[in-house]
C-alpha cells in the first residue's frame, strides 16, 4: 500500500493545481512575460509533438530491425552479446546520452536544434523497441514461419510480411511505451534543444518541450509561471498515463511478464 501513496499524491496535487489552468488559450498561446497573467504552453506542446514525430521516424525502424535480428538470427554468441549490451543501454543514464549528442552536434555547430534532440531521444527508444519487438516475435509460433516457407516465400519476405504482422500488436505496444517514455524525458533535451519561448522557426534554433517547460517554470518564483508549470505537468501526465494505461488495457493478459523490465 505504501507504493500507492506517492502516485495518489502526485496525481491529486497535479490535478488539483493544474485543472484551473487548462483552457484553449493555455494549450495554444505563447508563454507570457513574467508578471503578466496571460500565456500558454503552445510552443512546448508543439515541440513535444515534433520531437515524438522525428524520433518515431529515426528511432523506431532501427529498433524494430534490431529486435528482428535478436529474435530471428540472434541465437548465437554475437546475438547474446548484443542482447546484453541492449539491456545495458536501456538502463543508461539519459543525461549521458544527452552529453554524447551535445558533444557531437551542439558543441561542434554551436547550435541547439530539434534534430539533436530527436537523435538523443532515438538513442533512448532504440533498446526499448528492440526488446519488445524481440519478445513479441519470439511468441510467433514456428508453424507460421514453416507455412510461409512452404509457399516458397523468401525468408526476408516471411519475416517482414508474415512474422512481423503476426507480432504486430506486441511491436506497437513497445513503440507506444517508448513514446510515453520519451515524451517525459528531460535531461537529454536540456542539453540538445535548450528550451525556448517561441514556436518552431527553423531546424537550427532551440525549441521548447513540455518537460523542459515544467523544469524551467518550476524554478520561477512568479506564481503565474508556477501555475503554468502545474498545467503543463497535468498535460504531460495525461499523455504518459493514457499511453501506458491504453497499452495495458489493449494487451491485457498477453506478454504479461515481459513488461516489468521496460
Amino acid at each position, binding site marked *: 500500500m505504501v507504493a500507492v501513496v506517492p502516485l495518489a499524491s502526485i496525481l491529486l496535487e497535479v490535478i488539483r493545481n493544474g485543472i484551473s489552468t487548462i483552457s484553449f488559450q493555455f494549450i495554444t498561446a505563447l508563454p507570457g512575460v513574467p508578471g503578466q497573467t496571460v500565456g500558454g504552453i503552445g510552443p512546448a506542446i508543439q515541440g513535444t509533438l515534433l520531437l515524438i514525430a522525428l524520433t518515431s521516424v529515426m528511432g523506431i525502424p532501427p529498433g524494430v530491425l534490431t529486435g528482428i535480428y535478436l529474435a530471428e538470427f540472434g541465437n548465437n554468441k554475437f546475438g547474446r552479446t548484443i542482447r546484453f549490451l541492449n539491456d545495458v543501454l536501456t538502463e543508461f543514464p539519459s543525461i549521458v546520452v544527452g552529453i554524447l549528442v551535445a558533444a557531437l552536434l551542439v558543441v561542434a555547430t554551436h547550435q541547439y536544434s530539434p534534430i539533436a534532440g530527436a537523435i538523443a531521444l532515438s538513442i533512448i527508444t532504440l533498446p526499448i523497441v528492440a526488446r519488445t519487438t524481440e519478445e513479441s516475435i519470439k511468441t510467433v509460433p514456428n508453424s507460421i514461419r514453416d507455412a510461409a516457407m512452404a509457399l516458397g516465400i523468401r525468408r526476408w519476405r516471411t519475416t517482414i510480411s508474415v512474422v512481423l504482422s503476426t507480432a504486430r500488436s506486441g511491436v506497437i505496444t513497445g513503440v507506444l511505451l517508448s513514446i510515453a517514455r520519451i515524451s517525459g524525458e528531460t535531461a537529454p533535451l536540456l542539453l540538445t534543444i535548450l528550451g525556448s519561448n517561441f514556436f518552431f522557426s527553423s531546424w537550427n534554433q532551440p525549441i521548447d518541450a513540455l518537460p523542459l517547460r515544467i*523544469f524551467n517554470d518550476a524554478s520561477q518564483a512568479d506564481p503565474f509561471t508556477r501555475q503554468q508549470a502545474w498545467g503543463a505537468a497535468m498535460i504531460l501526465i495525461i499523455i504518459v498515463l493514457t499511453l501506458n494505461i491504453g497499452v495495458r488495457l489493449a494487451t491485457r493478459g498477453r506478454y504479461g511478464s515481459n513488461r516489468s523490465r521496460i
Partner: protein
Amino acid sequence: MSRMEEAPLDHAGVQSSRLQNFSYRLSHLSGDDMFEVLSNVFACTAVVIIALTGIVLVRGSIPVLGKFGLGFLTGSGWSTTFGQESYGMLPYVLGTLVTSGIAISIGIPVSLGIAIFLAEMAPTSVRVPLSQLVELLAAVPSVIYGFWGLLVLSPWIAKYVETPLTSGLGSIPIFHGSPHGLDLLMGGLILAIMIIPTVSSISKEVMMAVPTSQREAAYSIGATRWEVVRMGVLSYSRSGIFGAAILGLGRAVGETMAVTMVIGGALGSEAVPTSLFIPGQTLASLIAGQFKEAESLQLSALVGAGLVLFGLALLINVFAQFMVWKVLKVKAGAVE
C-alpha cells in the same frame, strides 16, 4: 540459394579472381542475404553507441584531465575565473554516493516489502491491479517527480522531519544545518521513491520464478509463513533480488532531473556532503545545471563529470544485468 553457385574463376591471378568473386556475390546478393546483413548492421547500433559514448567522453575530457591530472577526481574546487580555473569532482562523486546511499537504504526495504506482499501474500485479485499501479508509478516522468518533490514533498519534509531532527539532534554533525527542504536528504528521498517501482517489480518477478516445490518443502517441515518466505523464497531468489537492488542503484546514480530540482545545487567545496541538511550536488545534477553556460575548460570539466558518471553507471549496470540474467536463465531452464 545463390551463394551455392560458384563464381567463374579468372585465370589472370588470385587477386583479381577474388575481386571478381566478391563483385559477383555482391551483384547476386539475394534479398535474404541483404536482409540478414541489414538487420546485423542495425543490431550493432547498441554496440556502436556505447563505444562512441566512451570515445566522445574521453576525448572531450582530455583538456581538463591534462591540466589537473588525478586532481580532477580528488579536488573540490570550482572556479570558472579565467586564468585561475579549478575543477574537482570529489564533492559531486560524494554527493552522488550519499544520495544513492539514502535511496538504497530506504528504497530497498520498502521495495522488498511490496514484492513479498505481491508475490507471496496477495490474492490474484489484489496482485494484478496493484502490480500494474506500481508499474505505472515507474512510467511517471522524472521531471514530474522533481516538480512534485519541489512543491509538495519538500515543504512537508522540511517542516515535519528536518526541523525536529535539527533541533533535537543538531549537535551531531550529519544533522547540522538549516532545514529548508532543498538538500541532500531530499535528493535521496526523491530517489528512493523513484527506484521503488523498478526494484519491487523486478524482485516480484524473481520471487514468482521460485518453484512452488521450494515453498512446499518449507511448509512440509512445519515452517511458519514468514519462515517460508525467508527460507524458501528469499534465500532462493537472493542473487536476483541483489541484482534488482543494483539496478535500482544504477537508476539512482544516473537520475538527473528530479535530483537537480530538489538538491539545492551547491558548487565547489560547499558541495562536500558534511551534513544531510545542506544543499548538495550530484554528478548528473551538476551537468544538467551547468551545461548551458559552459565554455571551453568548464565544458571539458562537465564532459569529464559525464565520463565519471558513464563509468560508474556502466559498471553498476553490467553487474546488475548479469545478476538478474543468471536468475531468469535458471527460471527459463526450469520451465522447459
